[in-house]
């Protein structure tokens, strides 16, 4: 992969990307539920986490109460900028059931028999 052409895919994880440069707003909180900063996300990209899912699994951004509804787009933009690619190249992470946090005793009650 040549250095100045930019990435056309995210598959070769050893391909050269622009260097990490510390930025003034690195301590800005991006994921408010889990308090993940912009700098943490940028560093994780440079450590090799190039997909939204990997970043989310490693840093927990998007895994808090809102399940990423607020910050997913911001994180996507940060990853794309660090890699020097279009945000369109970054796939969204999977949404998972339940859509709203639900008590165990409510979920448990799906069966007709009284479980308690």
């Amino acid at each position, binding site marked *: *992969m040549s250095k100045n052409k930019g990435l056309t*895919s*995210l*598959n*070769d*994880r*050893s*391909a050269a990307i622009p260097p990490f440069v510390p930025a003034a707003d690195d301590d800005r909180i991006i994921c408010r539920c889990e308090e993940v900063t912009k700098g943490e996300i940028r560093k994780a990209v440079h*450590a*090799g*986490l190039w*997909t939204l*899912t*990997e970043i989310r*699994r*490693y840093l*927990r951004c998007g*895994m808090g*109460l809102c*399940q990423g509804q607020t910050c997913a787009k911001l994180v996507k933009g940060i990853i794309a900028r660090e890699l020097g690619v279009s945000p369109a190249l970054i*796939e969204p992470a999977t949404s*998972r*059931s*339940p859509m709203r*946090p*639900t*008590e*165990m*005793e409510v*979920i*448990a*009650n*799906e*069966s007709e028999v009284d*479980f*308690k």
Partner: protein
Amino acid sequence: MKNTADVIVVGAGIIGNAIAYYTAKKGHSVIVLEKSEIVGNGGSSRNGGGVRQSGRDARELPLAMYGIENLWPGLSDTLGYDVEYVKKGNLRLGKTPEHLKILEGLAATGQRCGLDMRMIDGKEVREINPYMSDEVIGASWCPTDGHANPLKATLAFYMKARELGVQFLTSATVTNLKKKAGKLKIVETDKGTFEGDTVILACGMGARPIAEKVGIDIPMKSVLIEALITEQEPEMFPQMLGTAEADFYGHQTAHGSFLFGGSSGMEDVNADNGTPVTHSITAPCICRGIIKYLPRLAQAKIVRTWAGWMDHMVDGVPVIDRIDEVPGLILACGFSGHGFGIAPAVGMTVSELVEGTKTTVDISGLTYDRFKAKA
């Protein structure tokens, strides 16, 4: 990127990533080929995080015990990323005399292999974990068991291996293997052809169709199993939990959420549409199990549920071996739902198989030629 290396690893789950790390650390060049766009998107990021010896088969116990004694305690420092390893014991719980009988059998196996594991009564269970319901009448207790964060551990091996120069190619599906001058050498993918002196299949169920190309059949099948996680809760207890009948297992994570896996009993016959999706009956069943043992969690809120395949070997333990008929081929697959806890020890052991030295850990029960038809 290059397309030749000393070692080609197929699969970037925790097994492939750990193999890549330990092999690269010994100075070999390594390429890892991964079908998914995402590193570690298989079972490795979907498991319960149990790092245990209790309940494990005697053939697999040496790997589990070696890893817990020698590798897990320093792993965060070794890799440079916190894998949230906690070594505070495992309670395997029982509510009936039948349960206790199962647990006694497991404890006896452990003790035979030199593991510190014993039966305790309900009172002692509640001394160790005061949140346990009065229905619990006993448990097996293994104080050296524990848990770690599967997401972080899987990615930590990846990031460290990458730092050591291992080349990872994602969205690359291995489709065929070919020999050159009698030795396995060529790995074909939908992203081009690669060559290595050693080829390691660390790709779970994916290993079966690939090994078939060189005449090796691995007797395993895929089974979809499920897990769930609660929102953050105040700190309650550090142990790993399980039950005699394995209806659920889990722990409280460093973050505070509770991570539990479990089963409905229908896993073997559940429909499988090719994507790991959850079944509506499973999470309720897991929740009922948890509430009976841990009534305090009844109001804990579930935030996510998910499913993942396990690569179930016919006799419940993996194959970790060099294949005599196909020089250059190593198999490390079929972890049968318990490959996370032994992953560091497997990575180290396979790096020894690559070099052809005697392995530190006894893996003589995990050979590929152990499968025999009924007499």
